[in-house]
C-alpha cells in the first residue's frame, strides 16, 4: 500500500469503477487453463462438498459428494478429481525442449505446463489441504484407496506450494491476480469477494462498480465463490438434500444434491473465466515469459519425481529446509517486484515516489567520455538528466534502466533536479559506444537503484542445488503406515 494505490482507490470511488494498477499483465494466463472451484462442507477442515472443474468454459464437470461426512465418498470424489486433473497435467509431459544454462548440463524441459485457476486465495489454500489429506494414502494396505488418489495428492500439494511462490503462475487465484492489475473502490478485505471485485472492474452495462459490488454481496444473487458456502444455502437447501440422501441414497437423491450445489458453482464458474479473459486482455509484461519458463522447469522436475514414484512431500519442512525455503521465497519476492517495476511504468512509479527511481529528459550527453589513462583507459559515457522526481540516491549508487536492460550506470552527481550518470556496462566494447547505447539529448529515460541480481536469480539454479519447490528434496521423506492410515473423518 502506498500513496499511489491509495489515490487509485479514491479515484475508483469517485469514478465508480476500478482503476488500473498495472499497464501490462504480470502473470501468465494459459490458452486453456484448468479452472477449479472447490466447495467445502462447513465446519470441516478438508471435507470436499463439490467442485466444478474443466478447461472448457462451455462444459464444466461437476463433482459432488452427496454426504461429505462419508469417508468412502470423499475418496471416490478424490479419484474422480484425479480422473480430470491427472490426464490434463500429464498431457504436458509429451512435448519437451532441451534447455541449457551456463555451467550446467543441458536438461529437458516441458514446452508448456499446466495452469490451475481458482477463484480466490482460500480456494488455493483448500487445494493444499485436499493435497495434504490425500497424498499419504496408499492403494494397498489397511485403508486402500484408488491408486490415482495419492498421485492427485502430490500434484495438489505441488500446485498449492507453488501458489505461495511469488511470480509463479502454475496455480493462480483470480482475486489475487485481478487485484494485482486493478484497484477497486472498496477495501482490500472486500476485494476477496470475486463477484464484488469483478463488479468494480467490469460492471454490467448500466451499473456502477459500487452498485455491482453491492449486488455481488447478496448471496442469493451471487453465491460465495467458495470454498465456504453461504450459511443460508446450507441451512435451507443443502441440509435437506443431504438428509434426503442419508435417508435413501438413491440416484435421484444424488441428483438433488448435485442440482443444489450446481446453483452455487455456476455463477462463480463464469466469473473465473471472465477474470481470465480480462487478464488476457492486457499485454504481457516483458518478464512473464521468463517466469513461466521457471514454472515450466519446476513442473518438469516435479513430473520426473512423480514418474519415478518418489515419496510424497513431507508434512513439514525440517529446520534447514524451512530456512532455505524462506530465503528462496524472499529472493523470489524481490525478484518479482523488481521485474514488475522494470516491465511496467505504473509499478516503477511506486519507486519514483519513494526516490529509489527517477524519470526525466536527457539534457546533456558525452557518449565518448573516458576514464583512466593508457591501457586502463575505459569508456564511461556521461549522461545528464533533468527530473522533477524527488530523487533520494547518493553519488556512487549503481543504477539500471528499463529502457536498456543489461546496461549499468553509476550516479555521479546530483545538482538540484539535474542528475549526472556514467554508464559502466552494456554500451559496447569499442572506443565509442554502440549506436543507441547512450541516450541522446531530448530522450525521456528512467533510472532506478533496483538492480539487484534479478537477472542472475531469474535464470535456473544449478541442478545439484535444486530447491525442493523444483522437486529435489534435500532429504528423502519416508512415509509410514501411520500416514496412510490417518483418519479422514
Amino acid at each position, binding site marked *: *500500500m*502506498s*500513496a*499511489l*494505490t*491509495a*489515490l*487509485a*482507490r*479514491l*479515484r475508483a*470511488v*469517485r469514478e465508480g469503477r476500478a482503476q*488500473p494498477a498495472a*499497464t501490462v499483465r504480470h502473470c501468465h494466463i494459459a490458452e486453456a487453463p484448468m479452472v477449479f472451484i472447490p466447495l467445502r*462442507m*462447513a*465446519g*470441516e*477442515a*478438508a471435507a470436499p462438498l463439490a467442485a466444478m472443474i474443466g478447461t472448457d468454459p462451455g462444459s464444466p464437470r461437476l463433482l459432488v459428494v452427496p454426504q461429505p461426512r462419508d469417508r468412502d465418498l470423499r475418496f471416490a470424489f478424490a479419484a474422480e478429481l484425479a480422473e480430470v486433473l491427472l490426464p490434463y497435467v500429464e498431457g504436458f509431459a509429451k512435448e519437451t525442449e532441451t534447455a541449457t544454462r551456463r555451467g550446467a548440463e543441458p536438461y529437458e524441459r516441458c514446452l508448456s505446463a499446466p495452469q490451475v485457476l481458482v477463484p480466490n486465495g482460500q480456494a488455493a489454500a483448500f487445494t493444499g*489441504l485436499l493435497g*495434504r*489429506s490425500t497424498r499419504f494414502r496408499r492403494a494397498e494396505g489397511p485403508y486402500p484407496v484408488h491408486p490415482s488418489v495419492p498421485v492427485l495428492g502430490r500434484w495438489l500439494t505441488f500446485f498449492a506450494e507453488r501458489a505461495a511462490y511469488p511470480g509463479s503462475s502454475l496455480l493462480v487465484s483470480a482475486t489475487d491476480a485481478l487485484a494485482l492489475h486493478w484497484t477497486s*473502490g*472498496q*477495501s*482490500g*478485505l*472486500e476485494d476477496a469477494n470475486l463477484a464484488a471485485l469483478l463488479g468494480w472492474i467490469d460492471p454490467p452495462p448500466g451499473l456502477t462498480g*459500487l452498485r455491482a459490488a453491492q449486488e455481488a*454481496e447478496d448471496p442469493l444473487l451471487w453465491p460465495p465463490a467458495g470454498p465456504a*458456502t*453461504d*450459511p*443460508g444455502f*446450507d*441451512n435451507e437447501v*443443502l*441440509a435437506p438434500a443431504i438428509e434426503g440422501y442419508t435417508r435413501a441414497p438413491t440416484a435421484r437423491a444424488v441428483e438433488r444434491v448435485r442440482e443444489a450445489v450446481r446453483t452455487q458453482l455456476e455463477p462463480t464458474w463464469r466469473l473465473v473465466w471472465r477474470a481470465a479473459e480480462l487478464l488476457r486482455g492486457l499485454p504481457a509484461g516483458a518478464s512473464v515469459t521468463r517466469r513461466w519458463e521457471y514454472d515450466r522447469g519446476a513442473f518438469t522436475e516435479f513430473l520426473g519425481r512423480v514418474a519415478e514414484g518418489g515419496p510424497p512431500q513431507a*508434512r*513439514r519442512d525440517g529446520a534447514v529446509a524451512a530456512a532455505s525455503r524462506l530465503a528462496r521465497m524472499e529472493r523470489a519476492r524481490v525478484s518479482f517486484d523488481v521485474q514488475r517495476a522494470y516491465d511496467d*511504468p*505504473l509499478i*516503477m*512509479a511506486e519507486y*519514483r*515516489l519513494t526516490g529509489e527511481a527517477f*524519470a526525466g529528459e536527457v539534457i546533456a550527453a558525452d557518449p565518448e567520455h573516458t576514464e583512466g589513462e593508457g591501457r586502463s583507459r575505459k569508456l564511461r559515457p556521461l549522461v545528464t538528466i533533468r527530473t*522533477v*522526481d*524527488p530523487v533520494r540516491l547518493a553519488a556512487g549508487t549503481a543504477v539500471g534502466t528499463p529502457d536498456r536492460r543489461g546496461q549499468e550506470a553509476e550516479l555521479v552527481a546530483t545538482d538540484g533536479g539535474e542528475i549526472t550518470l556514467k554508464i559502466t556496462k552494456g554500451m559496447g566494447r569499442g572506443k565509442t559506444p554502440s549506436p543507441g547505447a547512450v541516450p541522446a539529448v531530448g530522450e525521456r529515460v528512467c533510472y532506478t537503484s533496483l538492480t539487484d541480481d534479478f537477472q542472475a536469480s531469474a535464470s535456473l539454479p544449478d541442478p545439484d542445488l535444486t530447491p525442493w519447490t523444483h522437486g529435489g528434496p534435500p532429504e528423502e521423506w519416508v512415509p509410514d503406515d501411520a500416514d496412510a492410515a*490417518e*483418519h*479422514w*473423518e
Partner: protein
Amino acid sequence: MATDRLDALRGPVPPRPHDARAIAALAANPGCARRAVLDAAGIDKDSTARHLGFPAPFGQSRFAITRGDVFEAQVKANGCAGLLRLLREVLGLPIPLVAYHDAADVGAHLRHAHTRALIDRAARDSDDAGTFYDHPLLSLEIAGHTSYLEPDVVAFRLGGRFHIVEIKSFAVIDGQAEPAKVAAAARQAAVYVLALRRLVEELGHDPGRVSHEVILVCPENFANRPVATLVDVRRQLAVLRRQLARMTGVGDLVSGLPSGLTFDLAADADGVPTRPVAELAEAIGTVAARYAPECRSTCDMCLFCRDEARDEGSTDLLGRHVRDELGGVAGVDEALALAEGTRGPADGQEEIARLLRLADRLRAESLEPAR
C-alpha cells in the same frame, strides 16, 4: 446517572446480555464510540441493524454448528475422558487426579452460585478439589450490567492453578491452525480467564491462581481425535482490561449526548419494532462511529456504518492502510482535491498534500503511454 441515561437510550426492554464472543469483540475496535455506547447500554444491535435495513452479514451454517457440538460432546464424553488423556499426555497430569464436577447438576438458577462454591472449595482445600469443572457459569460486570459466561470446562490442579479449557472444532493440521481462528479463540478465552480471576479474587484468593495459559482443544489433522495446545492469552487480557475500563468511562460519552435521545425500537406487543427507521437512523447517527472494514466480522452494525461512511465520502471505507497512507485525511473528495491541486492544504496537511500531488503526477505520467 450514567446508568439511567443508558437505560433511557435502550428503552423499556431488558439489557441484552453479552456472551464471551461479544465481549471479546468489544476489544476489536476500541475507538468506536457508537459501539461503546450501544454495548454499554445493552442494546440489541442485531435487531437494531435489521430494523435499520442493514442486517448483519453473519450467519452460521448448521453443519458448522453440528460439527462444533459433536466435537465438544466427544471431548467431554464419559467425564471428560478425552480431555483427561490430553492433560495426562501433554501436561503430565498424574493418574489419580480425575475428579469431575458438573456445575450444572443443580437447577439453572443455582448454577452460578454452585460454580462459586466449587471454585472456592477447590481454591481453599486442595485435597478435596476436583480436576474438571464442567458447565461452569461465570459472570462479568460490563458497564453496570452483569453478563453471564459459559466456558467449556475449567481444569484445576495443573500446578495448583485453574486453567480455562476452550474446545474448538477447527482443525490443527501438522501443528498449524488458521491464525485468525486461533486468535479469535484466544480473545474469547481471555474473557473467561478475566471472569474467573475476578471470581477467585472476590472469594479472597490470589487471582494469579488462574493461569494466563488456556488449554485449546481442537481436532488434529483430518480426524476427530482431539489435540491440546497451551495458548498464552496475556496480551488479549491486557487489551480486554483496557477496553472494559474504557466502557466504565462511557459516562463521559453519554453525558455529551442530547437529552431525550433514545435508540428504543418501540416494539409492539408482538415484538415488532415500530420506530420510524429514519428517526432511529438519525438517533444512532448522533453517536460517532469509527467504521473499518474489519467491523464486518465483529459488529452487527457494520453494514449500517459502512453505508453511512459511504454517504459521508469517508476514507474509512477503504481500510486502515489507505487511511494511514492518506495521513489522516478523512474525506475522499478532500484527499482527491489535495491530490489534484484544486484545494490548498490546510495547516499540517502540507506534507500529505505534496505526496498526493506527486502521486497524482506519477500516475498520470505512467498511464499516458497506455492510453
